[in-house]
């Protein structure tokens, strides 16, 4: 079958699924006085189009920060402004200052859903297409993984159901990765800076980008893999008398300075209106990083929330201690993978480091929201065609971890259907359930190492399949119970807590797994193959 017609059909199916999910209610639908994320986005359109730029992040009489004050970086604000201009040309009532609070109508919903749809289509989907296109493997496998990646339930449900614009920041992050893939380092850096300036949560991905760029530059320039023929003959002559190592170090410095400059310029461009005064920048930073909000809010599948079931961490420790504890824990867990990446900057390692860092941040960091699991889910999606079994498992758990939120939004039906569909396509098209051998799980090197101490060590395929099935059944049961039964009166949060505990345990195991995978990656002396 012609490849383009197959890809068109896959795109059509993905877009159809997104559209059908958007038919469902959004976050905070019909729930005054605060409503939800949908109202927040609408409010930001109202604020950005009606108020001057310097007032957007400040608490003024026209801008009450307590009512969904802007807490994302400037690029989100600019995007809201563009949407607001479109909204104004259709129906100014949607974004009129003060009077449009809590505005809800079918036409407005269609407009808002359309903005998410366009964002997805313009940023995220092309990035994924580009990425899959450059993966290695048979055509059929690439096409299958494209369908599976595009039908990941978590992102569809949050963006097109709950209502957010994660596809923009995640899409830009993928463009950043693609930049590094094609050795267009400057493009990649710019793309990632834009992602960071859209949602500050992309900081979860920042360390791997930094480590990879550093490690890659070190390797290329210091180990003599740089291409000096691009130098001007004049300069080549000038260098002739100098020591080669000094030359390499200079080359490295130039490269790093170039990257640093481009990052600074990108940031400066995005923050331009707020660089006029120190107070402006500080206020924006304070909005982005609300350190006084506590270790966690709501029930989320991370370690602190799960610990607080047994030990009330928030009450036992002071806020400052909490901050330092989470900082230390996060740093400790992500250090091994970052160091490995700097020493051995391969693309596969980069993707694994992205998973490890974002998972570490999710599990141990400060003020984590359940939607942040999408930041870990993205690199796992990029690994789906390589380790289908574990990736599918992780992605299903990640969707399940957001179930209490989805249930509250009235998204039970699309959650059930999209999760079932995802399970169906990964098991049939990618044979996810069958790829449980040590080789498929990429654990051969690890198990070889362990067998030096424990000769009988092995992971039987049946064991893996059984645990996977039990996990799926547990998730299905918990979902059904949460949706149908009401919790006992003395434990009103029983079901969300069970969901977050379950997710947390799974995520810890996955963190271990992906760390093992990265740390057992062999060190190559020569050039790596481009994409694995």
């Amino acid at each position, binding site marked *: 079958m012609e490849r383009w*017609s197959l890809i*068109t*059909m896959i795109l*059509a199916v993905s877009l159809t699924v997104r559209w059908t999910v958007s038919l469902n209610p959004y976050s905070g639908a019909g729930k005054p006085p605060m409503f939800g994320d949908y109202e927040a986005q609408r409010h930001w359109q109202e604020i950005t189009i009606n108020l001057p730029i310097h007032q957007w992040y400040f608490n003024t009489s026209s801008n009450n920060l307590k009512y969904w004050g802007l807490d994302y970086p400037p690029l989100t604000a600019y995007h809201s402004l563009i949407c607001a201009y479109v909204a104004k040309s259709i129906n100014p009532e949607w974004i009129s200052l003060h009077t449009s609070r809590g505005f809800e109508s079918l036409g407005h919903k269609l407009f808002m859903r359309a903005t998410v749809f366009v964002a997805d289509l313009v940023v995220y989907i092309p990035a994924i297409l580009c990425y899959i296109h450059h993966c290695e493997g048979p055509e059929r496998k690439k096409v299958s993984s494209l369908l599976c990646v595009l039908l990941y339930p978590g992102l569809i449900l949050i963006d097109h159901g709950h209502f957010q614009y994660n596809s923009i920041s995640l899409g830009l992050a993928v463009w950043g990765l693609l930049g590094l893939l094609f050795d267009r380092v400057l493009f990649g850096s710019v793309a990632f800076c834009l992602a960071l300036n859209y949602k500050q949560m992309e900081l979860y991905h920042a360390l791997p980008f930094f480590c990879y760029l550093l490690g890659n530059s070190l390797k290329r320039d210091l180990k003599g893999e740089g291409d000096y023929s691009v130098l001007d003959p004049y300069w080549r002559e000038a260098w002739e008398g100098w020591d080669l190592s000094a030359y390499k170090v200079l080359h490295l410095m130039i490269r790093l300075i170039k990257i640093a400059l481009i990052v600074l310029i990108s940031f400066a461009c995005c923050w331009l209106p707020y660089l006029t005064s120190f107070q402006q920048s500080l206020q924006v930073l304070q909005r982005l990083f609300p350190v006084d909000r506590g270790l966690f809010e709501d029930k989320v599948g991370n370690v602190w929330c799960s610990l607080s079931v047994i030990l009330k961490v928030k009450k036992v420790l002071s806020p400052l201690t909490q901050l330092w504890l989470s900082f230390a824990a996060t740093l400790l867990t992500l250090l091994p993978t970052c160091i490995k990446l700097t020493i051995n900057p391969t693309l596969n390692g980069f993707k694994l480091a992205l998973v490890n860092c974002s998972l570490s941040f999710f599990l141990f960091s400060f003020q984590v929201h359940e939607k942040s699991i999408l930041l870990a889910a993205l690199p796992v999606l990029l690994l789906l065609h390589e380790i289908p079994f574990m990736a599918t498992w992780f992605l299903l758990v990640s969707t399940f971890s957001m179930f209490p939120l989805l249930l509250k939004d009235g998204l039970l039906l699309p959650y059930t259907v999209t999760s079932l*569909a995802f399970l*169906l396509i990964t098991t049939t098209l990618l044979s996810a359930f069958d790829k449980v051998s040590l080789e498929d799980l990429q654990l051969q090197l690890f198990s070889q190492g362990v067998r030096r101490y424990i000769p009988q060590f092995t992971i039987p395929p049946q064991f893996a399949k059984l645990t996977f099935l039990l996990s799926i059944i547990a998730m299905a049961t918990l979902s059904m119970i949460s949706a149908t039964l009401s919790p006992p009166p003395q434990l009103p949060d029983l079901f969300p807590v069970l969901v977050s505990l379950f997710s947390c345990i799974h995520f810890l195991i996955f963190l271990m797994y992906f760390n093992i995978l990265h740390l057992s990656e062999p060190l190559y002396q020569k050039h790596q193959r481009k994409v694995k």
Partner: protein
Amino acid sequence: MAAPSASSWSWFVPLALGVTLLKSLLIPAYHSTDFEVHRNWLAITHSLPVSQWYYEATSQWTLDYPPFFAWFEYLLSAVAQYFDKEMLVVQNVNYASNATILFQRLSVILVDVVFIYGVMECCKCVNRIKESKEIMERPAFILAALLLWNFGLLIVDHIHFQYNGFLFGLMLLSIARMFQERHLESALLFAILMNFKHIFLYVAPAYVTYLLRSYCFTANTPDGSIQWKSFSFSRLFALGSIVCSVFAVSFGPFIAMGQLPQVLARLFPFKRGLCHAYWAPNFWALYNVVDKVLSVIDVKLQLLDPAKLSKASMTGGLVQEFQHSVLPSVSPFTTLVCTLLSIMPAILHLWLRPRGPRGFLQCLILCALGSFMFGWHVHEKAILIAILPLSLFAVQNKNDAGTYLILVTAGHLSLFPLLFTGPGNELKGIELRLQLSSRMFDCSLQA
């Protein structure tokens, strides 16, 4: 044709499951007045005795399908009471609680299993000589994809809301049986089908002609024409008794109650006008346009007195009778004559030179198209009766694939007005077209 091995059909289940999941996602989508129609029929069949079914007129959506469909609604209503009892009250006009919507949507999805079975049987009939290793290039796979994922059917059944899925399943099953030379079963299935929805009368001539010619006459002369001596009365009797008994079971109770005229009046409402509320793209639509254009020109040229012009607008979305202004008005009898004339060549060809089940299917499609073009009060959904069987030819022959592409594009485009208030229906349209064109291009590469 040898039965395929189990493993080579492993792609069918995911395909069917996939489309079922998509249908589930469409549960909250826009639904039309047809939703209320079926809710009303659930209420009528549940709450009222059989003698009242075809007389009940509280709601404007009176029962106008044959008795088997009424019994089907009765069976559904037995389950419906566990979802929401209020939907079964006849007076609750336009009642659409969440439970009601869930129940009705689920019932369409579940009953579609008949359609899936019909598709499977049709796939088995497809020519497997050019079987390739690559699943996507097998005719059976493409046919299953074209039928199961037919977007016209998805729009009509799972958004607009109707029960065509399982009816087309019965039709496909009947066609498959014809290909498998199981003529009596085919006739039985078709008779049952007609008693579910009498629109399938459109293709009855093809069945009658083929069964008489190729089943009742057991042999042909060497040059292919009729051998009159080979007429088998036993076969004719078997066919006749099957068909008559089915109709007896269906209409029997109503004949016994003396309600036959009323039932027939409900089934064939000729007062509804030449064209449906939204015009089916058939000949009479063109006729209306020409009439309108001529009347405008005539008024300008002062050949026609504006006061004499009919005030009713034919495009108003209302179902009613009206007269044409310039061209002669058309009566139901005229449309019948035109339809018969249009299908006569196909019927005659089938009679004189039958070419087995393939010839039958071709005649069936032509009958469907002819009736669509010239019939009285044709719905645009009726184009599906021609589109679905044509898929069988499209996967086997390049020329047919080209015809199919044109028919399906035009046919599905004409269904778009059915989604006139659905949010984002334009988006749906775009995606539909993408799906369509890519699949068509691919299938036209086959053969």
